């Protein structure tokens, strides 16, 4: 009898001990979006493994949920079964979640980890909802103008600074049988809004955009009509080529520019990798400038790729905060942004101690430095996907095709845009916009 008792006690001790070991290593869950096996390996080697090593009491578990992450997240959060680290596709996804109490305010963690001193303040402002911090942006990006330097040198062309210069250049290209803009939307309908963003920022300008985003100016105002009119004139003149709806915005667009079939490519910093790949293949060199404006000063519209938050129902909120804090380090910036350019441009204030890999093109590093400087000076513009609420953004993308294909006028387009924006803005769905 006593023997059995001792055995039982021993077994109980083992069970309790094992449970304590398990408790000592708290699991932190993070659902990530689409990533190729190579990209998953980068995350494993540069984030998960060093994090687990630096935080032996925590164990990070990254789950790859594919392109449907956003939909899965919404359902899971509703039922309270979501991950600890909530990873969204941008601030416009954060506002509705924060509004319905699914996210935890991060202000205490911000104080604990001194995020105010380490992260560019504009981005902290953009993660706020009703005065509280709910999200940190993982990466920031901008749209501008890539051009085929080799082709430009051959024809004696200069990279355009003003919109008029760009139009003269594009007309010259059309005469030579070169498509002015390498562009397409067969893989990503959202590519449409890159051009709407560029037109709004370069014609109407960031100051007017700021007013409209804060509800102080309607979207039907004259500067915006002029912007859409101008964009429409580019389409009608054939700047986007005749195969826009058939080409992909990523590989095929980059290929068209690198091969010289097209001269310029208005797109985002996420294209650097494709530009390098196809440039090498075609033996041409690429340049990148801020998109031309009316005045000639380049404007960098600011975009946020993805954001980090913590779920209100997180099982391990402390662990989630440790993970987020770990990502915001010069080490992660250096390793991830070198290997996976454009997707890990973490908004750190001080990147002087960052070590970038040697194979990164100087063009990319230089562009990112320019962008970070213009953001620090407050001279940035606004991307539609970062600053507009969901239904309005979806209308920007689909409605512009109706303008291009002459189903509606630019004024009709802006009227519907304004209706949608006012409705969503009133319902509290609009992301935070810092004052200028």
């Amino acid at each position, binding site marked *: 009898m006593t023997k059995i008792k001792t055995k039982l006690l021993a077994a109980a001790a083992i069970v309790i001990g094992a449970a304590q070991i398990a408790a000592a290593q708290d699991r932190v869950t993070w659902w990530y979006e689409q990533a190729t096996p190579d990209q998953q390996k980068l995350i494993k080697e540069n984030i998960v493994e060093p994090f687990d090593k630096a935080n032996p009491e925590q164990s990070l578990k990254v789950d790859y949920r594919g392109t449907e992450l956003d939909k899965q997240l919404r359902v899971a959060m509703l039922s309270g079964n979501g991950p600890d680290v909530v990873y969204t596709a941008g601030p416009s996804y954060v506002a509705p979640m924060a509004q*319905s109490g699914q996210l935890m305010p991060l202000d205490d963690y911000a104080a604990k980890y001194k995020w105010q001193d380490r992260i560019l303040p504009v981005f902290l402002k953009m993660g706020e909802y009703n005065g509280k911090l709910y999200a940190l942006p993982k990466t920031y990006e901008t749209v501008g103008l890539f051009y085929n330097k080799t082709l430009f040198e051959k024809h004696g062309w200069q990279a355009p600074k003003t919109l008029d210069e760009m139009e003269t250049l594009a007309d010259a290209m059309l005469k030579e049988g070169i498509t002015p803009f390498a562009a397409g939307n067969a893989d990503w309908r959202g590519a449409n809004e890159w051009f709407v963003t560029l037109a709004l920022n370069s014609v109407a300008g960031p100051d007017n955009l700021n007013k409209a985003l804060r509800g102080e100016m309607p979207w039907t105002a004259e500067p915006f009509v002029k912007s859409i009119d101008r964009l429409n004139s580019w389409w009608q003149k054939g700047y986007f080529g005749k*195969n826009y*709806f058939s080409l992909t915005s990523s590989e095929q667009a980059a290929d068209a520019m690198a091969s010289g079939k097209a001269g310029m490519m208005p797109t985002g910093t996420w294209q650097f990798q494709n530009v390098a790949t196809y440039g090498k293949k075609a033996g041409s060199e690429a340049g990148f400038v801020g998109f031309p404006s009316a005045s000639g000063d380049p404007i960098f519209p600011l975009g946020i790729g993805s954001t980090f938050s913590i779920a209100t129902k997180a099982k391990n909120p402390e662990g989630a905060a440790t993970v987020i804090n770990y990502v915001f380090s010069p080490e992660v910036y250096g390793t991830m942004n070198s290997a996976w350019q454009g997707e890990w441009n973490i908004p750190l204030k001080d990147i002087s101690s960052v070590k970038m890999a040697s194979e990164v093109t100087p063009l990319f590093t230089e562009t990112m430095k320019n962008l970070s400087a213009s953001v620090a000076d407050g001279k940035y513009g606004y991307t539609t996907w970062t600053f507009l609420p969901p*239904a309005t953004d979806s209308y920007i993308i689909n409605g512009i*095709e109706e303008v291009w294909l002459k189903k509606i006028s630019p004024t009709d387009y802006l009227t519907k845009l304004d209706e949608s924006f006012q409705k969503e803005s009133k319902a509290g769905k609009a992301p935070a916009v810092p004052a200028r």
Partner: protein
Amino acid sequence: MPEKVIHMHRLYVLPTLIINIVIIAIPALLTVALAFFEWDGISTPVFVGLDNFAALWDDSVFWTALTNNIIWTIIFLTVPIGMGLLAATMLLVVRRGSNTFQVIYFLPVIIATAITGRVWQGMIYSPVTGVTGLLQRLGIEIANPLTETSSALYGIAVVDLWHWWGFLCVIFFAALRQVPAEQIEAARIEGATFFQMIRYVLLPGIMPTITLMMIMTVIWSFLVFDFVYILTQGGPAYSSEVLSTLAYRSAFYDLAVGKAAAVSVVISLFGLAATVLYIRAQASEFEQ
């Protein structure tokens, strides 16, 4: 006691009944209810009465989508059924190689939708990598049909037709083989031509199968989503939008779940009408 034994058999329907209630009835009723609410999929739904339907009434995209669904139904009620019938009767008349042809016709049916869509997009329609591009380089001015507002819907329909008609052909062929051989023999002896044979012997013989396929075509046509979403996502400029892609975009991009539910209710109304027709047709058949 014996009474209880008699009622035992009712228990057998219980498992299917539970599955149907949980997987079909409850979500369906919730969708109908949601059509009267405004909901972003995240916060608490707000009751808005008929607002969602009123908004649809004023939405030009909704009418484009509905018209496209009707065009789609008309195409699929005629073209693939005609092609299927013609090929099936020919298989019946000319027996040599009929097995090989059946396999060839049926092959596209078993390829996954996504793959069929991508193959047509990349290998046929693309001006860079497809047949269209090849013809363009040979100097023949031909556009990718998916990129023109006037032809996008038909460009998608061609892909769906290619994948679909073989199925109808095989179904009709199976039905045709059930037509009594004596009738066919008698018609032959009487000197009926090929078309007379179709018109007076074969078609009446398989009418129930054709009716069923036509009713199912109406239901399926209002549910069409996959090929449209893969090939054009309803574009360009909403020209190939159908009700299901409109519902999908409303729910998952515009975060207007109530509106999406209202569109789904409209879709199911058409399905319901077709189902009523089907049940009536079935009932009259039993009476005969």
